[in-house]
């Protein structure tokens, strides 16, 4: 549900960046989405189709770059990639975990002219 307002922010952000770079049109939006966020690429794409007409994004598509969850154990020092966000060290079983990646949610770049 919350992807509607988030996608609206995405369109606003990209339009503003297009303005800054003198783009009249954006063709591609490269979006990083971490797997440890509450945002689903499918819903973002869905709302994007509704929000893009009559903006600089109208011919744009979103290229999602999903970022896996990487954790570091502050006890044994090992780093691991995990599928599910269960923050337990796969090496030593401790819960002294720092999340290194997976919380990303940003526009990496835009392509346009």
């Amino acid at each position, binding site marked *: 549900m919350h992807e509607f307002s988030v996608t609206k922010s995405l369109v606003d952000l990209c339009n503003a960046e297009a303005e800054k770079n003198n783009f009249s049109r954006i063709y591609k939006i490269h979006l990083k989405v971490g797997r*440890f966020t509450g945002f689903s690429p499918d819903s973002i794409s869905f709302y994007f189709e509704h929000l893009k007409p009559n903006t600089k994004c109208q011919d744009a598509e979103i290229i999602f770059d999903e970022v896996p969850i990487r954790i570091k154990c502050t006890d044994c020092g090992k780093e691991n990639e995990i599928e599910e966000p269960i*923050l337990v060290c796969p090496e030593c079983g401790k819960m002294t975990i720092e999340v290194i990646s997976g919380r990303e949610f*940003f526009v990496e770049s835009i392509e346009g002219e």
Partner: protein
Amino acid sequence: MKRVKVLKSVLVSNMQRARENRREFDRMNSLVINIIASPGAGKTSVIERIVEYFKKKRKILVIEGDIRGQVDSKRLAKLGVDVIQINTVTECHLDAFMTAQALPKIDKKYNLILIENVGNLVCPAEFEIGEDYKLAILSTPEGDDKPLKYPLLFHLAKVVVINKCDLLPYVDFSKKRAKKNVLRENSKARIFEVSAKTGDGFGKFYSFLEKELNAKKKKG
């Protein structure tokens, strides 16, 4: 066609607004807690307990975020506490801009500002509103696996209150498993087990809040 780097968070405007809210709250020296839980977990009931306990010694404000209506605001107003209602209308969470609507209505310094977010375990987690921290409530009928199903909220919440412990004899809920699951998302979480119905378990929780309030006072 040209490709240009942007490297900006999609949530950038919300984050900026949250920082501004935070500065306002800090100027008032208020401890601000963002209370997040599923519908009916007992957010308002826990707030009622906190208000009853602290209202004589501290100035408390409750900000009520609801999709519509004023049901909870009316419940709280009965306790003689100041309440500001925000209706999110279509949104399933409070964001920093909606929260900012409350700022002009705050006309005195409060020691404690409790914000009841919209009943939802998913959406409110991603949106900072200017709080000091998030407090998640998990009620026993919901099941002890909820932290694993809604990991982000439990990862981000500094405090987790397990509510409706009076119902433990009737529901399949293991406190031990629940605590383990919370800690698997956030090994630093402070966990309290309470019943907002009977008042059991609130002693420890009140002392924790008391300490937090004192710490805030010293800082300012």
